[in-house]
């Protein structure tokens, strides 16, 4: 299935989907060195974002979050791509400076945990494999 999206950060990435049911802040809620969600109050507590295609509604929190994403990418612990319902500047900038493909506004939200997706951010679509 092909889902059209808007390009936020260019590139191609693929992986298994990890859906965050709540907004997520890269600064404070994700361990800066491992990529594991470290906030006990977040529904993804204990899960790692490394190598996954992170799907979330929106993000929040401090501008430092952009640099945290960069640090994760440097250590190979960042998501392989990100799909967001409505992008906001902190994660968008983080994705761009880190070279992580990112799209937002998917025409349909069909993303479920464990599904394999290919994110063609340059061309503005996501392929969902059954």
């Amino acid at each position: 299935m092909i889902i059209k999206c808007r390009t936020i950060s260019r590139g191609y990435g693929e992986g298994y989907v990890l859906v965050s049911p709540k907004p997520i802040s890269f600064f404070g809620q994700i361990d800066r060195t491992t990529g594991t969600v470290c906030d006990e109050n977040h529904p993804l507590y204990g899960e790692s974002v490394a190598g996954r295609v992170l799907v979330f509604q929106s993000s929040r929190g401090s501008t430092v979050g952009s640099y945290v994403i960069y640090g994760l990418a440097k250590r190979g612990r960042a998501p392989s791509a990100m799909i967001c319902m409505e992008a906001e500047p902190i994660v968008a900038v983080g994705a761009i400076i880190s070279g992580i493909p990112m799209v937002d506004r998917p025409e349909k939200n069909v993303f479920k945990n464990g599904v394999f997706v290919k994110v063609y951010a340059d061309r503005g679509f996501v392929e969902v494999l059954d």
Partner: protein
Amino acid sequence: MYLTKEEERILKGEEGYVKQKAMEIIVALGDIYGADRLIPISSAQIAGVSYTSLGDEGIEWLESLRDCHVAVSAMLNPASIDLENWRDMGVSPEYASKQLRIINAYKRLGVKPICSCTPYLVGVIPRFGEHIAWSESSAVCYANSVLGARTNREGGPSALASAIIGKTSNYGYHLVENRKATVLIDVSVKLETLSDYSTLGYWVGEMIGSGVPYFRGLNLRRSEELKALGAGLGTTGSIAMYHVEGVTPEYAKALTDQVERLNFTDRELRGIYNKHFKPVGGSVELVAIGCPHMSLVELEEVAKLLKNRRVRRGHKLWLFTSIAVKRLAERCDILDIIRRAGGEVYTDCCIALAPLKSLGVRNIAVDSAKAAFYTRLLTRVNVSFGNLKDCIGSITEV
């Protein structure tokens, strides 16, 4: 969004990797906020300077930006330490070396190593209607509201990207229609001190969160009051602009019929002083003044308060300003009066970012609601809030 052929070329990477990344940031933000095109800017003021907030990841990123030079005049936000006199602050060489690496990385990009939240006091003065890309929230408020320049509240990377390209996306406060008032604040209490103005801003930010407040009933005496007001507004709200009736340059066309109304009375003023923060008491070890950075007039005021008094043994008075204002204070003998009374003037930095815990400081007092908010949040020391006279009085003796 419409891009010129030249802008498209940069986006494709034909002018190198760094300019490509910078252009990607500007275009992505433009897309997110529905900009129609890019517009030229005349200056940038860049956040993401202190090691405390940037971290090692931030240093890695900045040092990866090579072979590029900013296109417009660019300055920095305050750092965590005085870039020259950090040893006097008690900062460790390890910490200082990280901070100085950050400054050098910016310098290599052509950014001026001038770290201040008051660029408009030290030589970067945009004219009315000029587009700029500034980060620091109180500077953004001052530029939009008092000078009538136009800027959004930029993040660190987006301000740097704009400095490198010399442009920003045309959205938000760059557009006249977004600069109208959204709420009318009737101020019926007489504001006396800069702390009072800071408190008014803090309260309004908390009440409205975002939007453009319009103040009625203010009886302003000096521009430092506007500096303090904007700093308060930018702390509790994502506010980037305000109007003051009869004072700021765009007030006359700012009001529409749809605005909401709020009243600021003595009750609200006292509420912030007494309930929100701890009043200044006897346990204070360090008084920190200069959020935003002090003007020459403010330093002179402190010098007058210190006449025939001195800082008590074991206590500290730290005043924060920009390098330029400190030099002026030196020329005017103000610095000498402050030092002889036991005070110290630091430049380039900010109390909320200083590594206070490792300096062994437990109780501080400030005269700015913004400083009270961030210092409590970021340094985890006990912070009390009061006006300048009470702060200075708490650690000095005749």
